[in-house]
């Protein structure tokens, strides 16, 4: 991520591909074409793609699509996938009801409902 990237780089025009309507992020229903297009619109890190399209922001938090998205973005940028830093994983690792989170013991040892 701290590599210097000039965002004016010209990737050439966006050409549709046959499998562009393939769904890559199932939770948020984001297609391969949308991801490819986002790269041409200037989103060149996985975090920017996520914030722009919501890939990996749904219930599975990217556990299904993260790798696929990385490969698609890398191919569009014509770089190796491992040159792209993965998006940050966010707690909680799986969805937790608010009532359960809220029930944590608060400082002082008192149990809070």
């Amino acid at each position: 991520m701290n590599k210097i990237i000039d965002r004016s780089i010209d990737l050439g025009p966006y050409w549709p591909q046959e499998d562009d309507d393939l769904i890559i992020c199932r939770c948020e229903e984001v297609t391969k074409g949308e991801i490819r297009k986002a790269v041409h619109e200037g989103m060149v890190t996985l975090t920017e793609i996520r914030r722009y399209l919501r890939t990996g922001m749904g219930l599975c938090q990217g556990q299904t699509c993260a790798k696929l998205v990385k490969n698609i973005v890398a191919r569009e940028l014509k770089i190796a996938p491992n040159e792209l830093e993965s998006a940050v994983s966010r707690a909680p690792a799986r969805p937790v009801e608010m009532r359960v989170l809220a029930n944590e013991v608060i400082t002082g040892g008192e149990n809070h409902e």
Partner: protein
Amino acid sequence: MNNNSDVLIIGGGVIGCATAYYLAKQGVNVTVLEKKQIGEGGSSRNGGGVRQSGRDPRELPLAMAGIKNLWPTLSEELGMDVEYYKKGNLRLAKTAGHIKILEGLTERAVAKGLDVKMIDAQEVKAICPYLSDEVIGASWCDTDGHANPMLTTLAYYKNARRLGVRFITGENVVEIKKIRGKARQVITEQNIYEAEQIILAAGYESRAIANTVGIDIPMNRVLLEALATEPQGKMFEQMLGTAEADFYGHQSTHGSFVFGGSSGFDAYTSNFDTPINNSQTAACICRGIIGYFPILADAKIVRTWAGWIDECADHVPVISFVEEVPGLILACAFTGHGFGISPMVGTLLAEMIVDGKPSLDLYELRYDRFKTKL
């Protein structure tokens, strides 16, 4: 590579990107230098509030002008839905003490010409029927609202880039250098850039950078946290807050609720290398939410995150030319409420460059307003 431009902007947050866009629209040649990636700071971590109520009178005119003239058409202007809702802001009260806090805020805002008023429990219920029966009243500003900060920042970036702004990410700015008395060069860890005018919009880190030309803005770095639920059926469109700041938030277009808050220990538990969550805070925010929103107790939290704010000694931003350093403009110290005014701030900064002065009086936001207490 040619590293010269008319204007250099340091910081690719919503302020830097909006300013770049409005400048490029007027044909100015701009370069933006960003340390990490677009929207790495508060701009992609915030609660999305686009408020006038609860604002300090010194920045209220900016908030009002933006909500009147810029936000309503921003999605069209940028060709991308920034999920702006102008459906009002409820600031909730459960006790007589809360009511008193809100009456004070309301009085000060009305004196500045803002249409905000106190309403009773029944009126609150009519606006948002999902709230707890413990709510006894609220302040109500029906022109407030919320938007999606990540999309707003990226929409400004995308359009600025389309208009020819050069964005360079991964450039860590360490110094501004004067040449013949004028700010002229920006030195990064690896390169040197030059411009006629430099706009410093790097959040808290603006402090250290401004220090290199002898200017100090008193601000601290403070951590705030936020969380999002899984999508819920559409419930309401207002922005919510409380008198005690237990939590604030809204339901997004996507259906998830986005809530922000803090633990009260944040100043002592912050990690100053990366903005990371403290294990106590999400629990604390959830208790705050359930206290006002019992109906959401079973909603699942899918994600939590943390972000820093650039808290200024007197809690309003610095948007200012710098007399001792011609060629430098400061735009920092937004103190946790810079998103709602960002389109207006971008417009004003562009005016300062193109017209030589902003169309709103920014005297009270000057860089040299800070005085010792005695």
